[in-house]
């Protein structure tokens, strides 16, 4: 127990405390400038910074929409893959593929798909007569965030599918047979049998994805670098920029602590869900 605890304190506790300490200073990321205590100045600056507030709401939007779609899509695909059909093992393996891709590769791929001149997204929509001409998807602030979300959903919904599929497989088929005899349709079977059974695992998947999505950085960095006109600049991108582009480690740490607090709340909810499941 003790060695484990020691490792935890070293690799998690120390950096965390050091970040919190840093957030009360005007430290520079590197270089020879002396560092001094500035109290709450960095936090006051963060709260009065309209750009940070915008970035915060952008992260929330990203988290809610992408996780929302991932959950719905993930459950639907899991239900499909739980049915018997020819080639099911192959399709099950295929579904995992997007999730196994590195985010950077995924982001580069979607950049090409959304390309305004030769992107296949434009080709698809034009051939379906949904749009008249090729257009810029990542250069338009009205669409760009949803396009990044689409790329994120494609990559991450398989996690939800995998977790839900595992839960589906342990539901005894007799339950469905009995329900069918009692005259319950597919819709009723889903809400009365399936949904309660998968709710636990699903809420775990939902919280894990939420925590991850709120911190979104890499896919943004590769696809849009926060543009156009800051339309995809999320809080994590903000932290990155403050620390590494502007070298203000102190203020960057303050922003990071604020992001950490939000994740802390989400983690608290996650633990509550876990505890409730243990009880039931």
């Amino acid at each position, binding site marked *: 127990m003790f060695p484990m605890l020691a490792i935890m304190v070293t690799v998690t506790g120390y950096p965390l405390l050091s970040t919190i300490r840093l957030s009360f200073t005007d430290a*520079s*990321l*590197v*270089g*020879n*400038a002396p560092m001094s205590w500035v109290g709450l100045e960095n936090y006051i600056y963060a709260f009065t910074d309209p750009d940070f507030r915008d970035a915060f709401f952008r992260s929330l939007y990203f988290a809610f929409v992408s996780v929302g779609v991932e959950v719905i899509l993930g459950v639907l695909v899991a239900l499909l893959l739980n049915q018997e059909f020819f080639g099911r093992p192959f399709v099950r393996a295929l579904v995992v593929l997007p999730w196994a891709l590195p985010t950077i590769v995924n982001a580069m791929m979607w950049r090409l798909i959304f390309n*305004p*001149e030769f992107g296949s997204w434009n080709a698809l929509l034009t051939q379906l007569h949904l749009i008249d001409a090729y257009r*810029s998807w*990542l*250069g*338009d*602030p009205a669409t760009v965030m949803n396009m990044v979300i689409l790329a994120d959903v494609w990559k991450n919904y398989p996690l939800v599918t995998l977790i839900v599929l595992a839960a589906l497989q342990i539901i005894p088929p007799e339950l469905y047979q009995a329900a069918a005899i009692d005259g319950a349709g597919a819709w009723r079977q889903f809400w009365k049998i399936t949904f309660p059974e998968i709710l636990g695992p699903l809420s775990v998947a939902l919280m894990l994805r939420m925590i991850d999505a709120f911190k979104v950085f890499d896919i943004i960095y590769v696809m*849009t*670098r*926060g*543009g*156009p*006109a*800051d339309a995809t600049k999320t809080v994590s991108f903000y932290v990155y*920029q403050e620390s*590494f*582009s*502007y*070298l*203000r480690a102190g203020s960057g740490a303050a922003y990071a602590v604020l992001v950490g607090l939000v994740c802390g709340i989400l983690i608290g909810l996650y633990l509550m869900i876990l505890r409730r499941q243990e009880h039931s």
Partner: protein
Amino acid sequence: MNRFVKLAFGVGLALTLGVLAPRPASADVLLNALFMKQAAYSEDDIRNMTTAFEQANPGIKVNLEFVAYEALHDKIVAAQGAGGSGYDVVLYDVIWPAEFAKHGFLMDVTSRVPDSETAQVFDGAWSTVTYDGKRWGMPWILDTKYLFYNKDMLKRAGIAAPPKTWDELTAQAKILKDKGIVQYPIVWSWAQAEALICDYATLVAAYKGAFFDAGGKPVFDQDGALKAMQYMNDSLRDGLTNPNSREYLEEDVRRVFSNGDAAFALNWTYMYNMANDPKESKVAGQVELEPAPGVAGLTTASAVNGSMALGIPSNSQHADEAWKYISYITSQPVHNKYAQLSLPIWKSSYDDPTVAKGQESLIAAAKTSIALMFPRPSTVSYQELSAILQKRIQQVLLGQATAEDAMHQAVEDASRLR
């Protein structure tokens, strides 16, 4: 048998690891060098230069790393925090010396540069490495943005000569559009990135505007700087500029232009030979260039200083070897040999017929443009200033704000800089 297999496997593994491990003999010095992989010298050029250097200097090996321009600054900064195992040679942009010098990132190499070279290299190139009266490296890429045009398209539109002023560019673009020769005649790199500021600065120079007044107060919302912004916006509203420019970087501009989807483009030196290369371009042989236009009554041409330099990070353990490498790849013979994608920093190279061969118009344009190169502000918080301008300029280009409002806001933001 079993033991034999194990033995063979072990020997094979040892051999493979021995062969694969990229470590020089113990006496060798290994330099870690950081370059970018877009515009100017190609990766192949840099590898060839480096191989030649290694052959001439036994005992020094150079490990090359290439990153996108957008990652270069942060990579240099992050490596500083890594202690002694960082880079020995880094490529850096003309806009960073103030910040780097303030934080002590680079070694002062003033005493290493021979006095005789001061007069032999262009002042615009020296300004890339000079801050606070000291030299923080050696200029390597002497670059500015030129106006590229498609000869064939202009001929078909009945246009006799390329534009000399930005208003003429507008007029010619309109003719090309009206005659249906090309849907969007002009393409730029207006993504939310430094490339946008380079295009903007070129126009600011043409309109004789400024980023800051003599007292150091930001003046983006006045005179020439505001007119530059309005020009960009008008050209977009009139349908003369490709609207996708708002998500393009330099390589996108090159692709669109090389594909025959634009008649005019603003881009760096490297596009000239690439867009005229049949392997890279559908419009090879049709590509010409001029210095970026001027404004009637104010300027005859315009240019932005987009030069880059090589420096030695202050935590390098091999400064002498690093300087040897820098001296070699910035030397006149090397510059003259690789003058197709990036032009020499050396003045006399421009009168050397072997350098000019096959790219006479590039050399002619360079002679005008290099003398005019307009600097972006030399300030410690340049990165942040640039981010402010990128955001506000894009708001105008995306129709979210008027030029006056957005640039006024940029001035307010800039005065909030800490």
